[in-house]
Every structure is written in C-alpha cells, then in structure tokens.
C-alpha cells in the first residue's frame, strides 16, 4: 500500500487514536486506498509532508502551525477533515465541486464522477472509531452480551488527553 505508514502517522494525529489502535481495526489499508481514489497523489504527499514538518502537536506553537498550514488550508484542510470522518464514521464524504476541480483525481469526469457520500464497507462501519469513543459498540455488531446495558457502561477510554 502506497505510503501506508505515513497514512497511519497522520491519521493518529488527526483522530486522537494511537497508531497501534488504528492498525488494530484492520481497515487502514482500505481507507488509504479510498483516499487515493478521490484525492490527487501530489495533494496527499503535500499533506504528509506538511504534517511531518510540523511534528507532534504537543505544544501551542505546533498546534497553531497545524491550524494555519493544514486545517485552514483550502487545499489540505478538507482532506484532513475527510480522513477523520472516514476513521470515525467509515463514510467517504464527497469533497465540494470547486475543490475537486482543483485537487480531485484527474479522471473524475468519465468513470469516476463525484458520486454520493458512501459507507466504505460493512466491515468499515463495524470498525468506526466513534463507537469506541462514545464508550459503546457499533449498532448491530460487536454485541456486548445479555443485560450489559443495566450497568453504567465502561467510561470511554480517554487516555492520551492533555
């Protein structure tokens, strides 16, 4: 998979999950592929490079640079946000048409027109990070067992918080 390790590193910063947790979902390669399906490779490279340059987001300076150079960038911001949504919700949201015109994959027009938002796969749905983040399980899968709902619920893991 093309630059999967970069994808994981960036994803960890964006999602707040450790790389090992992301790898554990098993859907990283599919997401990495999905990204390449919709975003031009040079844009993805630029995003990795920029993130690399900024480094860990553990201080105010780096965070400010991150907002400035990635989050608020017309080119990179939408991609970064889509990566988070992909991990949390397992959905690829179509990027706006004007963004696509500038940075979307080249062969958009014919066989890959901007379609509707879509769920990447049933397994991706099951692996969505949001369920773990809210302290539960994906609705319809990973059943916790009879009567578990009577208990307070495992308070969602909140390690790694500042």
């Amino acid at each position: 998979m093309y630059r999967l390790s970069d994808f994981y590193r960036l994803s960890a910063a964006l999602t707040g999950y450790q790389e090992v947790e992301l790898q554990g979902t098993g859907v990283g390669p599919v997401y990495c592929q999905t990204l390449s399906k919709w975003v031009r490779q040079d844009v993805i490279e630029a995003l990795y490079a920029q993130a690399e340059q900024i480094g860990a987001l553990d201080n105010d300076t780096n965070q400010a640079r991150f907002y400035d150079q990635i989050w608020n960038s017309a080119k990179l911001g939408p991609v970064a946000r889509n990566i988070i949504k992909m991990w949390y919700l397992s959905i690829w949201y179509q990027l706006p048409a004007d963004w696509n015109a500038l940075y979307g994959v080249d062969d958009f027009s014919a066989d890959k027109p901007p379609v509707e938002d879509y769920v990447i796969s049933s397994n991706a749905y099951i692996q969505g990070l949001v369920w773990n983040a809210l302290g539960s399980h994906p609705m319809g899968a990973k059943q916790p067992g009879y009567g578990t709902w009577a208990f307070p619920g495992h308070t969602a893991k909140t390690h790694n918080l500042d």
Partner: protein
Amino acid sequence: MTHHHNDYDVVIVGAGIAGAIMAKQLGEQGKQVLILEAGTGTDGRFFDQGKEQGYESYMERFFTAMAKIPNAPYPNNPNAPQPLVTDIQKPPLDKPVSDHGYFVQYGPDPFASTYTRSEGGTTLHWLGTCLRMLPEDFELQSRFGRGRDWPISYQELQPWYEIAEQHIGVSANADVQNYHQIDNPSVQLPFEENYNYPMEQIPQSFLDQYLAKGLQGMQVNIDNQTYPIDVVATPQGRNGMPRGDYRPVGAVGNPDLGQRCAGNSNCVPICPIQAKYSALKTLEQAKQTGNVTIETQAVAYHLAVDDNTQNISKVHYKRYHSSDSAAFEDKAVTGKIVVLAAHAVENAKLLLASNVANSSDQVGRNLMDHPTMLTWGLMPCKIGAFRGPGSTSGIPSLRGGAFRADQAAFRIEIGNWGWSWPEGAPIATVPDLIDKHGLFGPALRHKIAEEYPRMFRFGFLVEQLPDPDNRVTIDDQYRDQLGNYRPVIHYKVTDYTRAGMAQAKEVSDAIFQRLGVEPFTQYKTSDPGYVQYQGKGYVYNGAGHLVGTHLMGKDPKDSVVNRDQRSWDHPNLYLVGCGNMPTIATSNPTLTMAALTFWAADNVLNALDQY
C-alpha cells in the same frame, strides 16, 4: 410442501405477523393454506445460506446504507413498493398533493409512518414493544364521549392476550405490568391470577434506573388532578431469561442464534441475531405444519365476488419474476375462506380496488397512528447511552385518566440510543464537531467520550381519535409499475392530539428541570411534522402504528368487520391486522392485534367446520 392445485381451504394475503399467526393456527389443524406475499422472501434462510437472498443480505445492506432508516436493510422493490421515512414532506400548500415516494399525500398534515413489504412484513424492523391496552381504551366513547367503543371488552380479549404473549415470547413480569404500583387507577390492568409472561423482564437500562431514582415521588397536575410519574419496565418481544420450561425461539434456520438478546442495539431496523421476535419465526412454524404454502412475489390486486352468495370467489394476483423487472403472470386462486393480512393500508387499498366490504363506506377511513413527539437533552452525568435494546422502560402513568375527555393520553418511551432518533447521532452529528467546531485528535475523542454517553431522549406516543376524514383512498392517476394502486392519504392531527402533545411537552420540561437535564429539543418550522397548538410549535414523527382502516364494530352501518373480524358484507372474508382496531389508545398496537388474530383464527376454524 407445495400444492399444485388452485383450491385451498384458506387463502391469506400477506406474510406479516397477522398472516403468519393465521396460517400457523390453521395449518396446525390440518387446513390447507396458501399465503400470497407481495414481497420477496428470505426462504427461511439465516446466516447459513448465501448472502444473496438470505437474512444476512439484509445485514449487509444495513451496514452500508447511508441513511440507517427503518427500511434500510430491506430492498426497495418497485413491484411491491413501500413508504420510506426519507420520502416524507410537508404536503405543499400551493399544490394538491405531495407525490414523493410511494404514498400520495394530500395532507393537510403529512402522514409520517411506514411499513415493510417483504416476507416477514413490518415486524422485521419493529421495536418489539408489547403492551396491553387498558380496559378504558375499549370504551372511549362511553367513558369520555370521544372516539368509539370496541365491540369487545378487555376481559374478553384477555385470554387471547395471554396466547399472543406466549407465542411472541414476551419478556416481562406480570406483577410489574399490572401497574398496581402506579397511583392512578385508570391505568391499572387486570391480569389473570397466577399468569406470568413466558420470559422474565429484560433488564432495565442504566438510564432507566437513573431516571427511576431521580423521578421517585414526582407528580404532575392535569385538570386539578395529580398524576404520578413512574418509570416502569416495558414488556418486549425479545428473548430474555425463560421462566420454567419455556424455551425461546432462536433465529430462523439457526436456532442456536438469538436465544437471548445480546444487546446489539439495533432492533430497529434489524436484529442481527434474531433475538427479537419477527414474523419469520411464526412463518417457519406455519411451514412446519406441512399444510402451509407461501408464494412470494405475489401481489394480490383484486377480489372477485360471487353475486349469489356474496362470497369472495377468487383472489387475483400478479406473480412477478424478479424485482428488477415489471414482467408478471396474472393468476387467481380460490379459498373457502379468504383472509386479508396485508397491513392496514394495503388491506384497505385492496378492498377499495375490488369495491368490496365497503357498504358502510368506512373502508380506508379512520386511519390512526401515534404522532410521536421527541424531547432530548444532556444528562448531568454519563448514563451510558447507545447501549441495549431501543427502549427498556417507559412512563405509563399518563396512559389513562379523566383528562381524556379533553385531550389525548400519551405513553412516554425512554430511548436508550441517545440522540439517534432526533439528531441521527452519532453518524450525522460527528461531522459538525469536525467541520463547525474544528475538533480533531484527542479533543474530538474527548468531546465524544464526555458528551455522547450523556445523550438522552424521550418519545411521547400521543393518542389519536378515529376520524373518518383521515383516510386511505385510491386514484386512477397514481399507480405503481405493476399497475397497482398507490395509497392516497388524507391526514390531519387534530387539536385533541395537539393538546396532548402540549401536555407532554410540559411534563417533559418538568422532568428535565427536576433532573437537571440540559435541554436540546428543537422543533423547526421546516420539519414536515411541525404543528402548532395555542401559539407554540411542536414536531411529531410517525410511529409505524397504522390503525383503523377497516375497523371492527357492533353495527354494519358504521364498521367494516364484526367482532369475529369477519366482513359484514362477505361471509367468507376475514380481515386481520391493526386495521381492525377502532381506537389506537396509547399502546403499540401489535400485541393487541396479534391477540385479535388468534381469536380470528379460531373464528375461521369454526367457520370452516360448516364447509
């Protein structure tokens, strides 16, 4: 077992819970039964056979559906179209109809409920709430001067309730469900002495317990009378711990699955392990009698009448080859007795299309639902939202009382899945955290961890009265691709119901205040179900409880079926389903309808003895 003849003891239209119960009861007594089912079938399959057609294909569809609405797992089939919640619009004021989706709606208010047209019917995605009606619900007219009386009483229906509860496999405790702990005599239910449900009540969620504690001793005042606010476990058609020798039915085709609810938190739209009752289970039992044949992809569209006897002589149906094409064979079949179990709206449509059973002019009229108002907010602490069955408890203490002379009664449902209904959380709400609030990384994770487990909502199932102008009709202009009629609906929510919504909102506000719930309820004027009452706005949703379109009564002049659930006009025609119910009251209707259907099956068996 297939019969290659065209002549059955009983022809049943519809393989939902009503048709399935009828078929099983008749098949067990050796009667030859054919069920015509409009939708495609699962052929009794579960995980063991193929992803293409079986139950698991429904799971696949659900997982990858963007809009996880009740019909999401069940393919849309243009030969047996079904209404979708995403089709619901406010009927436009400037044009006569809202012609979006399957229903054609004239309003003035939108009809917001749906059903499912495939083998198993709407119980594929029902929640499974199995409440009995109150004795006073059968006598609204004589007690409150509202609505209608039933031709039967609670006492008469009670043994049939027991049979239905045993069959569906309801989990509940009778000494809780008689409501004797509630200080409101109107809602107290008589149960047969020593009766108990087949399975113990499903554990109440942590949220339920939290509410029960916080609301202890709370009362509200309505019309100068005080009413308690009590949290009570809800009886449910999902497998709990069996009592005695009772053994719950597992999944169809794989009985080892689904013996207990495992907390998949997905009962609507689909229970992955079939721990929740669905009509597929009863259909399987019906087939095992060896006397019941199910023909799927068979849409009944016309009933022919014998002029001499007024009996239904033939059921005409269109047997299509696949849901991808409109090609069909025109077929007909004969039964000594014909039973319509195609669901309230479809039964009415079929009767109207055939011009039968309508000497009273009540067919299609008196359509009722529970306009369901939601309120939602954030609890002051984490209550473990998004876990367990959709709802495990409710507040039933306002289901009855003297106030029903002036305003609708309502039942309060406590939702276990956070803001999934009102806001589509978490899937629909997380993008805003990212796009609008700029959250990412640990801050995003933290926000979700801190806030989502506090999400909480109530649902208020508000009573509606039978109103002849709320109705299903047919119109030559509106047909589906097989040439069958689409339902044309006129519907309004009257002040009686709106007053109930307003009262419900007041009760909700009082509860929120008492518990320190931060309110997030928003009723937007743009919402299709937006209505006003005394200057304030409210929003209702559909409950999927379609009732009243061929109601039962004492008088052939103003009702469609008699207390035997037989058509007044045609001696060999029986109707089953919620369409028979003269009032909707405050309980989800399916248990009552199932009880009535067991009764109807007995009546059909007796009638068959005369042939």
